């Protein structure tokens, strides 16, 4: 289980995260929602160990979270890959870096789950569609079987139909693999549809945390109601007639 306790992060003298507490069990999804500058990506950087907490701690099963080697899926699929390498070499980098063996049939099984033909991996990032590049990014994140996967706006570069398709594939793979997923998104519709819990950040602090259905139907704070209503206004969520 991922546990974040009373986390504060400073950048220079500015506090960018304050009093963040959350727990995320294996196999579950926490969607972290908030507007630009709310601290969503800072939270991911802190969990990855790229930013040192000013206060509090971040653990996975009682040990520092970094030791669990959490994986990251980035926002811009093509920019997340070395443009000079084919996708296969980039996808295998976690295996090489961690010095672990690739289980027999794992690459093929993950590719099947992501609906990616194996020969697609022989192409460079600029030779595949943006949706295929993002699925390759998910493949790279999962290849070394991490217990925790962090997704930083994983769908925002994709079109509406590809977003729903990719989100379904992520959920199906999570059910098979059992990893905990922390998904940062500004899309409340995605968060509600695929999250077990929703945590809303505002100006570096937790505005509200709730299970997804409760949040969608009865957000408690005025800000969260505004977020929910904006998602309806933009068509991400639809209110039943």
């Amino acid at each position, binding site marked *: 289980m991922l546990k974040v306790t009373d986390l504060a992060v400073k950048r220079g003298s500015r506090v960018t995260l304050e009093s963040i507490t959350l727990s995320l069990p294996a196999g579950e999804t926490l969607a972290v929602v908030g*507007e*630009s500058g709310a601290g969503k990506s800072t939270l991911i950087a802190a969990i990855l160990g790229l930013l040192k907490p000013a206060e509090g701690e971040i653990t996975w099963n009682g040990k520092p979270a970094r030791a669990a080697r959490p994986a990251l899926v980035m926002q811009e699929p093509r920019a997340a890959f070395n443009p000079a390498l084919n996708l296969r070499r980039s996808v295998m980098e976690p295996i090489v870096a961690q010095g672990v063996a690739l289980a027999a049939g794992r690459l093929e099984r993950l590719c099947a789950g992501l609906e990616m033909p194996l020969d697609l991996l022989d192409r460079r990032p600029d030779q595949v*569609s*943006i949706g295929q590049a993002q699925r390759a990014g998910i493949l790279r994140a999962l290849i070394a079987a991490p217990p925790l996967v962090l997704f930083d706006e994983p769908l925002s570069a*994709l*079109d*509406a*139909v*590809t*977003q*729903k*398709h990719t989100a379904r594939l992520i959920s199906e793979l999570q059910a098979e693999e059992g990893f905990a997923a922390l998904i940062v998104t*500004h*899309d*409340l*519709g*995605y968060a*509600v*549809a*695929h999250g077990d819990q929703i945590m809303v950040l505002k100006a570096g602090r937790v505005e509200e945390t709730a299970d997804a259905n409760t949040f*969608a*139907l009865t957000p408690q704070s005025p800000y969260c109601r*505004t*977020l929910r*209503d*904006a*998602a*309806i*206004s*933009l*068509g*991400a*969520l*639809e*209110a*039943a007639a």
Partner: protein
Amino acid sequence: MTLSVSGLSAVRSGRTILHPTSLEIPLQIRIGLVGSSGSGKSTLGHALIDDLRAQGHTVAHVPQSPDEALDPLRSMAFHWREAETALGLPPGSADQAGLFGALKIEGGDLSKRPWGWSRGMQQRFVIAMALIGNPDLIVLDEPTSALDPVVAAATMELLSAFLTGKDTAMILITHDLGLAARRVERLMVMDAGRLVETGRTEDILERPKTRAANALSTHRNWMVLPC
């Protein structure tokens, strides 16, 4: 009056990215031009704007990001004067107070450069510039995708309210049928450089005829909330 274009097409690197397309756009209408990435929506939008301007119509364009419309080294006042000049209007003659009030940016400091304004305010400023002189048509190309949802929703609400009762027609270009469905009365669906389906919004939502329209309709939102 109806805006008409015929036989619009485009070829890039020997590949046809827009097959010959003809359109009739009545004034006051709100149309959604929808399709997946790479389907040719923006190409048709640009071709349409060029053709109608060549016919002498006033057509405004709002790009996806205000970064594409605003020079970071120039003040907002400069941009406003440029827009007036481009339309042949004397400086200060556009109804700035009315447009700024409608889009709720009346508190913006025009002496500042774009980065002195929030992105939401920048995008509403771009929309206000586009509406100077009540154009025959305003084309909005993914106007909310660079904005946070709360700001995006407010911007679309303000624009819809402003256009109510005006002659200006609107084309909203988006990959997101859920966004378009709440804002337009007609839809045009593009796939692989062709206009494959057009019709009333509710008809395409309920009875899509083509594969492309069916995919967009099926995936138009993440979920339906029970009441």
